[in-house]
């Protein structure tokens, strides 16, 4: 396989995913915040709330459009750039994408027209229902996409069919309700709610700093502060169970995230650490920290709710650890190659109508099918994801998460005590927190996606085997095309957003 083709295809997918995720979390969270605000308006009849709702709705619309633009590419890139993948697991993976279109995306896009253009055309309650349906549609959309993503990380509810040479679904509910899927959905949408809350608080703080739109700012901060604070509690819970699921189902990712080379009981959590420049090579040792601050026993507890539990390190997982019943990757590679060869033999025997030979090959395939993907690896260390990126991203995400909790707490306290207008230092911190919220959610995805490399489907298909057979030059051209387009559109979006915020609610058209 052409490595540069794989890398460019990876880069293109990462580029589109990163850009898409610049916009989606704000859509997910702001849709609910706007729905809360409009509900207050409908219940109280207070026109000020209508004005506030319309202001945030305008920002929602600007953000929504570019989210949609970047999203369409992602769906089709599974076909254009990962066509082998599309066949190998399309029987399972395609279903959530189709369900998303039918059950969620239409809901969102139909009622968004009423939400934007229906103020003077439909009744108050119909309009409010439309706003809620947009929020529900957007979040349902996220559910199906995240179910699909979770399945790649934890493939369940299927079997391998040697006749079609693909994985086929056996149980839809296993796919939909797998613990990884539920957790991934909750954790991801909650991160969107947190980001949107930070965004609303940050923008409102800017108004307070400028002594403008005081009513809008304080009321918006109240809604966003409470929403953000509640969601922060939930995100801690979902983040905690996410770590445990990862330790169980993706132990290499977990070890990489912790830069844990030597497995151990009573493993400490590195709360803060700086790695040596090249810790990912084969000579890597746990001691490759320049400096670190550890919390004793906490990693064992976080992974298995038991301070005495053994947390396997990268060495255990790559070279094996018989005492812990961990198989070395080299053996898994052997088994994977046996599975691939058995599939080939099975096909050949079927062509020759040799039933006995086909049965023998099928038995070998069944015995080794769980290691199928390992057969494509060149060397055992290929199974290790990039450690520094995963390690730092995790710490960045968690650290910023704690800062946001503090921000929400301060917001709620200041708003309830009616002091928020006068805390300039707080306004500045809140404004600076907006880019940090984006950074935190991107780092979360880096942990999830970079950390699971080399797998496109955990243990079953490495990224190198999933790529479409096209020329590298074609992918380079489209990569550049999309990089330039998305960057220009991002700049346009930010400028329009900033201008709209500067206009506030006073001028006509700004709502």
């Amino acid at each position: 396989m052409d490595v540069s083709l794989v890398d460019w295809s990876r880069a293109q997918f990462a580029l589109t995913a990163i850009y898409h995720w610049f916009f989606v979390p704000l859509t997910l969270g702001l849709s609910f915040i706007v729905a809360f605000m409009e509900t207050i308006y409908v219940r109280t009849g207070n026109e000020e709330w209508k004005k506030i709702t319309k202001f945030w709705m305008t920002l929602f619309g600007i953000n929504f459009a570019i989210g949609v633009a970047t999203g369409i590419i992602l769906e089709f890139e599974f076909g254009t750039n990962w066509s082998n993948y599309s066949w190998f697991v399309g029987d399972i993976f395609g279903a959530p994408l189709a369900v998303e279109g039918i059950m969620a995306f239409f809901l969102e896009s139909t009622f968004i027209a009423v939400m934007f253009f229906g103020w003077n055309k439909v009744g108050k309650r119909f309009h409010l229902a439309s706003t809620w349906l947009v929020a529900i549609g957007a979040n349902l959309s996220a559910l199906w996409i995240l179910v699909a993503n979770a399945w790649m990380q934890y493939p369940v509810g299927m079997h391998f069919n040697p006749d079609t040479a693909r994985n086929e679904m056996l149980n839809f509910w296993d796919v939909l309700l797998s613990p990884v899927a539920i957790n991934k959905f909750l954790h991801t949408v909650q991160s969107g709610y947190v980001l949107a809350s930070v965004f609303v608080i940050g923008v409102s703080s800017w108004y307070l700093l400028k002594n403008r739109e005081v009513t809008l700012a304080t009321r918006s901060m109240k809604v966003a502060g409470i929403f953000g604070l509640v969601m922060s509690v939930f995100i801690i819970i979902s983040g905690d169970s996410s770590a445990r699921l990862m330790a169980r189902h993706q132990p290499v990712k977990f070890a990489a995230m912790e830069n844990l080379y030597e497995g151990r009981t009573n493993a400490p959590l590195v709360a803060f650490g700086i790695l040596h420049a090249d810790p990912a090579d084969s000579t890597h040792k746990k001691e490759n920290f320049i400096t670190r601050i550890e919390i004793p026993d906490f990693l064992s507890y976080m992974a298995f709710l038991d301070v005495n539990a053994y947390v396997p390190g990268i060495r255990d997982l790559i070279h094996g650890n018989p005492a812990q019943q961990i198989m070395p990757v080299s053996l898994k590679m052997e088994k994977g190659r046996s599975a691939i060869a058995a599939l080939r033999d099975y096909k050949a025997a079927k062509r020759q109508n040799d039933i006995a030979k086909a049965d023998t090959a099928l038995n070998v395939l069944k015995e080794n099918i769980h290691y199928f993907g390992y057969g494509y690896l060149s060397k055992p260390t290929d199974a290790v994801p990039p450690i520094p990126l995963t390690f730092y991203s995790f710490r960045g995400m968690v650290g910023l998460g704690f800062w946001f909790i503090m921000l929400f707490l301060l917001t709620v306290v200041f708003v309830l005590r009616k002091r928020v207008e006068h805390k300039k230092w707080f306004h500045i911190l809140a404004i600076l927190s907006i880019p940090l919220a984006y950074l935190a959610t991107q780092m979360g995805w880096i942990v999830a996606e970079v950390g699971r490399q080399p797998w496109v489907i955990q243990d079953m298909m490495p990224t190198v085997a999933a790529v479409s057979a096209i020329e590298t030059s074609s992918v380079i051209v489209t990569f550049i095309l999309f990089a330039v387009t998305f960057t220009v559109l991002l700049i346009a979006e930010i400028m329009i957003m900033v201008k709209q915020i500067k206009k506030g609610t006073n001028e006509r058209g700004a709502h």
Partner: protein
Amino acid sequence: MFEQLSYTALQQYWWIIVSLLGSLLVFLLFVQGGQTLVYRLGKDETQRTLIVNVLGRKWEFTFTTLVTFGGAFFASFPLFYSTSFGGAYWVWMIILFAFVIQAVSYEFRSKPGNFLGKRTFETFLFINGLLGTILLGAAVSTFFTGSQFSVDENHFSRWETATHGLEAAFNVQNLSLGLAVFFLARTLAVLYFIQNIDHPEIIQRARRQLLFDAIPFVVFFLLFTVLLLLKDGFAVDPQTGIVSMERFKYLHNFLQMPVVAGIFLTGVILVLLGILRTVICFEKCHDKGIWVSGTGTVLTVFALFLVAGFNHTAFYPSTYDLQSSLTIGNSSSSRYTLTVMSYVSLFVPVVLAYIFYTWRAINRKKTNVEELDRESHKY
């Protein structure tokens, strides 16, 4: 319920669903057609803004239908998804790019702070309208003309031309369908404007424009249809699955599936009726044109999809290796997945019902400049 259906029946059911989505998509391309008419029908800024806003209230339907069409194809016929998207890379990438630039254009066009300027986004809308329609039409036409790809025994596909799908645009039949879709989209857009815009000057121009688009549409569609009926097609032996060329295959398909032929003819008649009624009795009939021609479009395209996939026909034929051709039998998802997805498809009528309801709520009255001035959300 769906568990009782045979695997073949489920595959056919899903081909019908995909065909329905495809035909709705072609109807909704009137948004794209309208985007290419913004400067033709709008002679000043106010008129152009009115046109863009009337279209802008519907652009997401087209977009969503395209995404759902893709998702449904992926879920039900994944081998088509992997073969076509992974192989005809350039055609699909250009189509996608055209839709990316569309999605932001409505929202960003007239917003303050738009450093690219209004004109840039209007150009984006034009590009989307031009490329989106022609290339989608050409891509669908390859269902009849074939493409050069091979599929190995593990169902991994490979495109056998370096142009990766662009070659489709140089085939007369593909091009004729592409241009037919382009002019049909413009025709439907004109009918949509006539129904929904309250502006005498624009309507006057739209009336004049109608035949300028309808006549080329009829010419290109006729050319495509004649070529289709006369051409050899890709027949599948139902016993062995072996694909071979059959003379007048698609003509045979129409003759052997009279219901499909009836749908096709009804569709064509309705498309023409919607146009002719609007031309002949404008004062009385102008409001109905979009619905008559729109329904005709859905029926015609639906029938074309059925002709492409039913009656033992390879719907995505390979001219490089006939036996690599895709049929609804060899490219579909497993029986279990099709069954599950069939239950999901029961939501389609619900979706259509709420789309119809909200469409009416928003389009109850024609849009005019005064209303736009009062509007808080304006493109």
